[in-house]
């Protein structure tokens, strides 16, 4: 991919094709918030395999991907459905030892990605000192001594994911990605800087002139974006603050149905495999009126 000032707008299928089997993908997500779930559904439909997924907080999208057999390894700090409870497919796969798990503290995985973003071989933190977490991955975290004070710190080996996938508010066709408000969560901040390729879906495509009127809103410059997909409500059932809230009904339904592998399969058949396009997905949710209803925040 190049970083050129050219039209980056592609179809959902074309974007998914940039992710190759075996890739390490850095995937945005924070509980019930901001996750590129339309992209995730397409990765599942496209039958991706052996993915190594790096996240801070793994949620509903990761649980789908694990259930669908896309994932070989997860690197994260927690994987659950937030207030809706366990991520059951993660749990089952882990207990059946069908999934490689690299559990980190938040600041150790961020320091790994931050070093990747900075082109440094490693970074340091104090997070995790004294815990058993560090012992899980001596190849990527190691206690070393400060060369000035002798104090112990945790060296974290750089991680440069092959691809970062994100969902954001809007962009121009060149891939100048804007957020309102500007990046808050860690993944929006460091994932695109750390990854070799960056795929972003957005709610809205605007003219380049509109971006130039509001440069303070741009979070990722076009020269770091490889592919752009126009996917309104592309985070659903997660929220995209302040545009729309998460879909409590769909979260609860998945939490209930995913208690069994069969229930999970039925859910994925209905919400992923059974819908070939994002338009079909939106239609299934009940069309514009139903989606409008998600915009309530109280």
């Amino acid at each position: 991919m190049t970083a050129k000032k050219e039209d980056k707008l592609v179809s959902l299928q074309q974007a998914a094709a940039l992710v190759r089997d075996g890739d390490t993908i850095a995937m945005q997500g924070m509980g019930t918030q901001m996750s590129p779930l339309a992209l995730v559904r397409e990765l599942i439909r496209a039958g991706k395999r052996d993915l190594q997924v790096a996240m801070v907080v793994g949620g509903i999208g990761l649980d789908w991907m694990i259930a669908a057999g896309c994932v070989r390894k997860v690197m994260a700090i927690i994987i659950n459905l937030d207030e809706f409870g366990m991520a059951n497919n993660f749990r089952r796969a882990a207990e059946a030892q069908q999934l490689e798990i690299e559990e980190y503290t938040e600041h150790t995985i961020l320091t790994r990605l931050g070093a990747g973003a900075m082109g440094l071989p490693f970074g340091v933190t104090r997070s995790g000192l004294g815990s058993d977490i560090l012992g899980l991955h001596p190849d990527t975290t190691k206690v070393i001594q400060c060369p000035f004070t002798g104090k112990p710190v945790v060296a974290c080996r750089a991680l440069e994911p092959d691809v970062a996938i994100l969902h954001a508010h809007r962009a121009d066709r060149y891939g100048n990605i804007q957020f309102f408000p500007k990046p808050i969560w860690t993944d929006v901040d460091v994932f695109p800087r750390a990854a070799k390729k960056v795929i972003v879906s957005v709610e809205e495509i605007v003219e380049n002139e509109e971006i130039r009127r509001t440069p303070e809103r741009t979070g990722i410059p076009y020269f770091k974006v490889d592919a752009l997909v126009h996917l309104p409500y592309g985070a659903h059932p997660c929220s995209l603050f302040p545009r729309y809230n998460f879909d409590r009904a769909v979260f609860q339904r998945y939490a209930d149905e995913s208690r069994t592998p069969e229930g999970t399969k039925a859910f994925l058949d209905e919400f992923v495999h059974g819908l070939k396009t994002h338009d079909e997905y939106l239609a299934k949710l009940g069309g514009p009126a139903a989606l409008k209803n998600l915009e309530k925040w109280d």
Partner: protein
Amino acid sequence: MGTAKEYTIDELMVCTLAKAFTSEDIILNGTVSFIPVSAVLLARATHAPGLTWVAGAVGVDAQPGAVIGNTLDPTMWKNCVMYLPQYEDMWSYVHRGTLETFCIRGAQIDQYGNINNSIIGSDYHKPKVRLPGSAGMGDMGSLDKRIFIWSTTHNPRTFVKKVDFRACVGWLDGGDSRAKLGLRNGPQLVITDLCVMDFEPDSKRMRLVSVHRGVTAKQVQEQTAFELVMPASVPETPAPDREYLRLLRDVVDPKAMRKIEFRGSATKV
């Protein structure tokens, strides 16, 4: 004000935790933390108006009015003075010690306040039970936080002699073992569905402070897999002030979101 006669355990836990907070505290909360967030809002509405709360680690001094969403949700950032950028700003204030107070729960808690929410079993890679993971506790345990622990499952499976996996560093192996590693602060208080506990200053072993109404010290010991430091006399946990209870029920958490915390608890609320 006077104390209330009728209250439930969830209410008692929130009010007791709220009383532990002061106007000097700067508190940020993590995921699925309805009891701490209710306690923060309650403390701020009563004796600790100057308390600084960073809602979901993002919304500085937020004023959502009530618990209206999950505890990381943007609904809870309402009327904040700043969206704290996480990657640099939040982590620097956490690392540096400016944000000093954090509340944690977990599937296993041991006698020194070390906590585990990753796996149950003797081999991490072949777990009997796979839990969600350590989340922020793996950070906060090592980053000099004053840690308040809460649990709605006070039983021997949760309160274990030694955690199967030490995700959150409490007082480590007790005594000065935490300080020797160069870590400041540590676990302060443990509030469960049965009692309140703290840590004996020298040994850092968990110590019973008070038992909730209708619970005996003996019952607490029976539900704890390690030997508690047991004072000569153990009072009853003070009942909530009536005004605190009213504010909690009517203003702070009218939808009783805090009861989500009692999934899997033997205590019915």
